[in-house]
């Protein structure tokens, strides 16, 4: 908030909205996205966040992720991690060095690259774009336009490593032989210890597809909005560190 007597400085972002698709627009979109994510996370930390505010921020996040996915792919060959500047910026105070040991940064980058490789492996006929972390969520089937896909209670998976399951299936080749959800199906879901309340997890454990839906691009633990926190559901959390190990091993 602006302090009394203190003049506001015109921030760089207060520009006329650039043409959609241009680099300026993209950087604006990324900035607003990161601000929105940060806002949403902070509001969820409140004992009782304002529902109106949460809904508006969530809709803004959703809109920007949709618009971001409509952008033409920047590089279709090498799945590079997303650039650090726009996507990963959250707060001025936070460490912007994406190569740091910040688990959010490395996790999102790793997920992005893994999923991109996976896409190209599954069906080489389709040009695989270097998917941003958002794209993984966007491509999920069943992501309703009006809502945000959330991890839902599912069948408990077996305690099998990702690597063991993924490789044999990948060798089979051909589309449809292996799906992303199959790969995650067997992740040891006992890693899910507690729900943060934001996710609205029920008493069961998520399916692979649901797990993939959950994986946030930027946030440490909480990401896309869920309003189930207003429902009296039990809380389980997601141990990203453990999942990170499994994914990186592949």
């Amino acid at each position, binding site marked *: 908030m602006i302090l009394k007597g203190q003049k506001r400085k015109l921030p760089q972002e*207060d520009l006329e909205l650039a043409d959609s698709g241009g680099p300026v627009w993209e950087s604006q979109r990324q900035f607003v996205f990161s601000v929105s994510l940060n806002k949403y996370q902070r509001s969820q930390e409140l004992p009782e966040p304002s529902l109106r505010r949460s809904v508006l921020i969530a809709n803004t996040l959703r809109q920007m992720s949709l618009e971001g996915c409509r952008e033409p792919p920047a590089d279709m060959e090498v799945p590079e991690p997303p650039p650090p500047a726009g996507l990963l910026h959250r707060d001025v105070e936070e460490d912007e060095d994406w190569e740091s040991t910040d688990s959010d940064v490395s996790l999102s980058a790793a997920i992005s690259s893994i999923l991109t490789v996976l896409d190209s492996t599954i069906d080489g006929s389709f040009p695989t774009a270097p998917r941003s972390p958002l794209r993984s969520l966007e491509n999920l089937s069943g992501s309703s336009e009006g809502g*945000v896909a959330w991890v839902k209670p599912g069948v408990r998976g077996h305690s099998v490593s990702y690597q063991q399951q993924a490789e044999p299936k990948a060798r089979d080749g051909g589309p449809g032989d292996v799906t992303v959800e199959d790969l995650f199906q067997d992740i040891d879901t006992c890693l899910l210890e507690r729900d943060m309340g934001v996710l609205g997890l029920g008493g069961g454990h998520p399916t692979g597809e649901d797990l993939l839906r959950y994986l946030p691009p930027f946030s440490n633990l909480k990401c896309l909005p869920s309003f189930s926190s207003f429902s009296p559901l039990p809380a389980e959390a997601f141990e990203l560190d453990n999942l990170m190990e499994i994914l990186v091993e592949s």
Partner: protein
Amino acid sequence: MAGVAGGNDFQWCFSQVKGAIDEDVAEADIISTVEFNYSGELLATGDKGGRVVIFQHEQESKNRPHLRGEYNVYSTFQSHEPEFDYLKSLEIEEKINKIRWLPQQNAAHFLLSTNDKTIKLWKISERDKRAEGYNLKDEDGRVRDPFRITSLRVPVLMPMDLMVEASPRRIFANAHTYHINSISVNSDHETYLSADDLRINLWHLEITDRSFNIVDIKPANMEELTEVITAAECHPHQCNVFVYSSSKGTIRLCDMREAALCDRHSKFFEEPEDPSSRSFFSEIISSISDVKFSHSGRYMMTRDYLSVKVWDLNMENRPVETYQVHEYLRSKLCSLYENDCIFDKFECCWNGSDSAIMTGSYNNFFRMFDRNTRRDITLEASRESSKPRATLKPRKVSTGGKRKKDEISVDSLDFNKKILHTAWHPKDNVIAVAATNNLYIFQDKIN
């Protein structure tokens, strides 16, 4: 009613200011709602501390007839206290979200006040007589033994200093899971509605243990929630009609005769978005923060972040009038989003004849629009211009590079000073403007 813009017919003058002058504003003293009663004799304010202060209009002095009477404190009471929801481990704020007066039917005054969860019906009555002469107690105050009372003495009513009592007559609780944003008394004077983020309930003023849910937009799966209710109001004349606005900039008019549950609207008001002005914040700024029927019942007014729109109830596809409140903020939406100002909920109000509308802005500015002349004026509620009967000088915000004298640049606006709550006297040109913890009363200059 004369026009509102500066000119020969009308000039707004400072009348009074209520509240502390301290720079450090206590959170509890921040005014959260302002409302005139039906006659305009009483003016009620609610604050974040759960208190209600009622001001009464004093009659004009016979010695100085050129002065309108002033509003002086009539009654002060604690309406709501902070509570704790043990089930959810959440504290329920005592902040008064809305006050609505009931039409006066006898000597007493009744009003509804609400916080996030509970609505209360308060009776404000005067007592200027006291019964004296009881022989039921000894002189030291001890109650006498009934067997010792041998004569019947009828007490005599003696005059006493005027005492205004506020007593809670009804408490309407436990009907809202989400935060109440609106209450509205129906034209039948028997029922009223209360609205929270997802539901609207219909109450009878006499019955506290039961309410009827008439609107429910809660999705089966809360993760699919994309829209909330932001305001609701009963039609001023048709007791079967009410409207509610949403965070997506839509207004739904419902007829309670059609169905018990009014999830299906009778009319749907929405203005198509202008593609040229689309931005990341289009939805947020389209969120309606207030909806008010005109006194005539023919129109309704909605307030979104940047504008006020007047709708004809017979035309759903677009408003009949649109007034820009502070269009110069459109290029600042990113910053306003960052500092959360974009989520501020401004109210709006009609004058008694529906010829003018008023709403607040930042820097303690408030805006008035004359619907007939299409002129508008920006005024400021400030201590500096608070000399008795001083005419308010119109203010202007410079949007271009060159700033004229007496203009203020957009970057110099104080976004901490916001006028969210205003009220217009139902009959006279007297307005009440809440500026944080101060209540300003302005009136037109009597010629």
